[in-house]
């Protein structure tokens, strides 16, 4: 019967394909551009763990498409919450860590898990909420707004706050603002039904807040880049507590010798170079009418970071 032959051919095909997949074949797919006559050295993969708030804006994919061909590299980027990304870094499962939580980065560097931190971009967190703003927090300072939300949340059923609740960089910032406002975070969590913990990424959290006409803390990048129409509007956009600083670190080869240190250095030094800093500042302007990120270079005072971290290439 013909179907037997067909089945046989299909099985052979699947075996061949599975065999190739399993042998870990890493031959890169031929580029669409003009082929080079001389054989190029093997393309190198760089494994980066980053946060969803950075990755979901599309900035890293965009930069990777420029860096990759120029440096004969292939960026492999996995995005998680900052907490998870740091755990991957601590376990030596990636080469580079790109996150936005200065306190945890400091701990990461201090215990020898990472090195050569460079700050490559910044933007702001914003408190978004329903256009009707039932709690009346518009244009307040972040700590005043949180205080108002806490007080109003207890009594006004229209006031709901959605937290990331997932140990991400954004969540860490939220906890910091609560602390600055004088609250004990556990007390906030237990204070009532007005405080909801989403336990998920920024996009889904925004969606949840939108559904519930609730307030939430978001980075401006994810908020602008979110592809579904939201009713939420930015209500609190100014304040030192809202500064959102993105850094990159290399996993320490002393701890994990397999780390691709050379390529990691090239990537990070490329990120802080003047030309790419300008690219970062221009990203998304055409599409969203404002930048999603600002270059860190020359802004080290504003960001309260050492000058070297924004400008000096890793040796």
């Amino acid at each position, binding site marked *: *019967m013909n*179907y037997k032959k067909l*089945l046989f051919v299909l*099985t052979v095909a*699947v*075996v061949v*394909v*599975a065999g*190739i*997949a*399993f042998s*870990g*074949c*890493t*031959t*890169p*797919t031929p580029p669409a551009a003009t082929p080079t006559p001389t054989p190029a050295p093997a*393309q190198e*993969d760089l*494994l980066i763990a980053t946060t*969803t708030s950075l990755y*979901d804006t599309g900035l890293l*994919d965009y930069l*990777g*498409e420029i860096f*990759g061909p120029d440096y004969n*590299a*292939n*960026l*492999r*980027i*996995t*995005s998680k919450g900052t907490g998870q990304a740091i755990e991957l870094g601590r*376990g*030596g*499962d*990636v080469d580079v860590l790109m996150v936005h939580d200065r306190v945890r980065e400091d701990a990461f560097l201090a215990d020898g898990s990472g090195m050569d931190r460079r700050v490559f971009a910044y933007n702001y967190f914003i408190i978004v909420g329903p256009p009707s703003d039932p709690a009346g927090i518009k244009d307040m300072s972040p700590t005043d707004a949180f205080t108002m939300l806490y007080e109003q949340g207890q009594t006004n059923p229209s006031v709901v706050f959605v937290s990331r609740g997932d140990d991400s960089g954004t969540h860490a910032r939220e906890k910091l603002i609560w602390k600055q406002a004088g609250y004990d975070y556990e007390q906030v969590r237990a204070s009532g039904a007005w405080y909801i913990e989403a336990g*998920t*990424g*920024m*996009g*889904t959290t*925004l*969606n949840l807040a939108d559904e519930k006409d609730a307030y939430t803390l978001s980075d401006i990048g994810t908020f602008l*880049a*979110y*592809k*579904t129409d939201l009713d939420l509007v930015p209500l609190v956009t100014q304040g030192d507590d809202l500064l959102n600083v993105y850094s990159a670190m290399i996993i320490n080869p002393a701890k*994990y010798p*397999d780390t691709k240190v050379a390529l990691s250095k090239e990537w990070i030094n490329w990120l802080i170079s003047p030309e790419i800093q300008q690219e970062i500042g221009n990203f998304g302007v055409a599409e969203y009418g404002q930048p999603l990120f600002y270059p860190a270079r020359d802004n080290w005072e504003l960001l309260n970071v050492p000058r070297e971290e924004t400008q000096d290439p890793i040796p």
Partner: protein
Amino acid sequence: MAGFFEGLNPILEGIQQAVNLLIALDPQILRITALSLIITLSAVLIGSVISLPLGAGIAYGKFRGRNALIWIVQTLYAFPTVVIGLIVFLFLRNNGPFGSLDMLFTPQGMIIGQTVLVLPIITGLTISALVAVDLTIRDTITSLGATRMQFLISAIKEARFAILAAIALAFGRAISEVGAAIIIGGNIASPGNFWTSTRTLTTAITLETGKGDIALSIALGIILLLIALVVNVIISIVQNR
């Protein structure tokens, strides 16, 4: 708050945009689909190669603890896939026992995860299928002078209807699984190298829905449904000769 029909509008728009993406053969979608198929087909193939003999051995074996073993296999049908993902992750990561294999965040790692997922299903259903082969037929095969191997092959042939259904079921479970795929694979796009990307249909839907890209999510969802349909059609054809 939108009324029922107003609320349908964005969904219909999403479906329309999705169909446009599919017709245009969007390369990103092709990549993701191809990877999903390769990973799941590989896992089902490897799983079958292990499960069929294993299931046959258990079905027709006479050994102590046979019933307990069958019971364990059937309990594993409901093994939460995200827990499989967690366990495989712990074993494959750098600090884990198999860290030196460098399989975390690779398609190979995902194949391992999906193989673990399908093993109980194919094994268990093969056992059921073989045990159900009529005793008279089995006796006939034996009395015709079949060797052990010939007997097993004949029995499997007799039960092929149910065994193929088991494989199709396992395929469906594996390709629609998302928890283990994200934990083990990391949902990596890897634009410069298809063979080290780990973005499959399910992990991509999770990402794109999180970014609010409903049209792309729906397109990928439609593909998953189509794959399920095609697999079912193939199995039906093969079963009906």
